[in-house]
């Protein structure tokens, strides 16, 4: 039987767009920086933007590709942040090179977040949609609570860990340092994160996610999202693939967390709370579920915009909320959609809408 087979290049072309956007943005910022045209507030935002972009991509993997609503994703960021910084501080003498220490710290952060993802994922992924959302929220709060009461220090003897006891209970020797100080979080973080590191992390994340989607594992994950019963009926082990996708997503979030934390001198557990989880979710939904370029643009824009609008800061969150509501209405309500289509494309759009929805 002879059948025409298409070349596979067509699929790959569509995937180039997010890479192109990221590379172009990086090049533009670096060029502006070299010309001295970037303000210090913008430069201060570069690493956080990268971290939020990666977080948005990782949550898009869970919500858009896996099809599960996770309301506690900031918890994985938090695990990555704190374990990564502990590693960075502990390795201070052993690994003098900043770049390699950053890499190793991110490795630790990623691995710990992946473990957290496994611990959360195994019980959680059996639940149905709304219950899963609530349990991920609960886990996010638990992680925050635990870290807020965690004391970790390092001295000549190694790592000391204590829950609820306070920094003194660590029994550090005289030359030891407290790294995590309960609710005070971590101070004196080695600021190893750079914009270039963030850029590379975004590219690696894109590589992993886009390649996953275009492989049998990704197809299995999307199949169970679309129709779990049908996926099982064609022999797909749904639980296994959901778990793999979820753990991968948590791991990526952990890497983002490590990058994020090592951009600041101090970081506390409350920074990675429910509000942060919701913030990332807004990026993902606004950018479009499953749309990686959308997540990148939304995360970057919505992180930079509030800073740009600082002048109007009293009303900016209010405007932000209203815009959010309006965008949701515009994307999902047929009458609104028609209104905007007419606004931008005239009467022709009306006919097209009618034909599509007919």
């Amino acid at each position, binding site marked *: 039987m002879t059948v025409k087979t298409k070349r596979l290049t067509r699929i790959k072309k569509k995937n180039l767009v997010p890479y192109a956007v990221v590379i172009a943005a990086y090049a533009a910022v670096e060029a502006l920086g070299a010309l001295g045209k970037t303000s210090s507030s913008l430069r201060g935002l570069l690493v956080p933007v990268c971290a939020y972009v990666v977080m948005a991509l990782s949550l898009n993997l869970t919500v858009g590709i896996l099809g599960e609503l996770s309301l506690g994703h900031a918890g994985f960021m938090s695990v990555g942040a704190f374990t990564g910084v502990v590693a960075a501080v502990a390795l201070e003498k052993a690994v003098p090179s900043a770049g390699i220490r950053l890499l190793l710290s991110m490795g630790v952060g990623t691995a710990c977040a992946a473990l957290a993802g496994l611990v959360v994922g195994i019980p959680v992924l059996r639940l149905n949609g709304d219950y899963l959302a609530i349990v991920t*929220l609960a*886990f996010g709060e638990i992680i925050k*609570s635990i870290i807020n*009461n965690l004391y970790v220090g390092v001295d000549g003897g190694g790592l000391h860990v204590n829950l609820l006891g306070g920094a003194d209970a660590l029994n550090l020797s005289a030359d030891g340092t407290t790294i995590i100080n309960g609710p005070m979080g971590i101070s004196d973080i080695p600021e190893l994160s750079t914009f270039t590191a963030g850029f590379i992390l975004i590219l690696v994340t894109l590589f992993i996610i886009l390649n996953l989607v275009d492989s049998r594992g990704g197809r299995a994950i999307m199949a169970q999202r679309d129709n779990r*019963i049908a996926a099982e009926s064609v022999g797909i082990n749904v639980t296994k693939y959901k778990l793999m996708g979820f753990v991968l997503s948590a791991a990526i979030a952990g890497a983002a967390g490590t990058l994020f934390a090592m951009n600041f001198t101090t970081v506390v557990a409350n920074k990675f709370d429910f509000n942060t989880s919701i913030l990332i979710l807004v990026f993902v939904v606004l950018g479009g579920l499953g749309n990686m370029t959308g997540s990148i643009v939304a995360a970057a824009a919505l992180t930079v915009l509030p800073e740009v609008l600082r002048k109007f800061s009293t009303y900016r969150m209010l405007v932000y909320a209203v815009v*959010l509501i309006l965008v*949701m209405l515009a994307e999902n309500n047929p009458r609104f959609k028609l209104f905007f289509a007419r606004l931008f494309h005239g009467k022709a759009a009306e006919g097209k809408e009618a034909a599509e929805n007919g």
Partner: protein
Amino acid sequence: MSFLTYLIRGISLGSVYAIIALGYTMVYGIAKMLNFAHGDIIMVGAYVCFYAVSSFHLPPLVGVFAAIVACTALGIVIERLAYRPLRQAPSLAVLITAIGVSYFLQNAAQLLWSSNTKMFPSVTGNASIKLFGGQLTVPVVTIVTVISCMVIMVVLTWFTDKTKMGMAMRACSEDKDAARLMGINVDRTIAVTFAIGSALAAVAGVLLCSAYPTLVPTTGSMPGIKAFTAAVFGGIGSIPGALLGGILLGVIEIFSGAYVSTQLSNAIVFAVLIIVLLVKPDGLLGRRVTEKV
């Protein structure tokens, strides 16, 4: 006697959670959406009552009434403007919209009333009564809270079982289209559900702040999350489930704060929730809706 004190305090806090959870569960049952902004309506109710009593020097009961009126109106307006246009939209879109409404309310409150902590004047006064020959002191607000919760539960159960509107609500939560075909005004039924839920939120806000008097724009947020987990815990869509989930959550929170650690009490509450859901995935009183293959 401290065990009893904690138990009573737990039941009281739990009653507040139950009242809030009722609002969540009723709206979820009928509109299949998680009204994220519900916790912030609680906050609005508390502020309205606060200003009614502090600035306008109205008697506390009038303050409560004003809060109920304001929140009911707010709930109806929100439903009409933000949720009704998204009736057919995917649930994630509705959730994000609800988040937008929540942000809006919190920031509007911040602009209108500033984020300075207000001390809420208890609507039940600050008296306590002594039981067991003076060994047990129970604040009046606790008694009022628990009794209010019970009364609300009874009235609501009667309402949904025995009245025409209650039946309409139950019909809409089973199958909106069929209900519409039977001549039920689905839009009005949903609006009434939101109105009731918001009125309950007002009551919860007033009672919550009477017991824990600090009031800021974010006051409603955490109780809202906890009450939401209570509703899920008890079985979302179930009225007795909201009561059970709320009371249990309040008791667990107070006990873990008292006997384990106040800092970890939230973590313990959420951990219990997770364990229960793993054992009983539809909540304590939830019904499993099996998918037809």
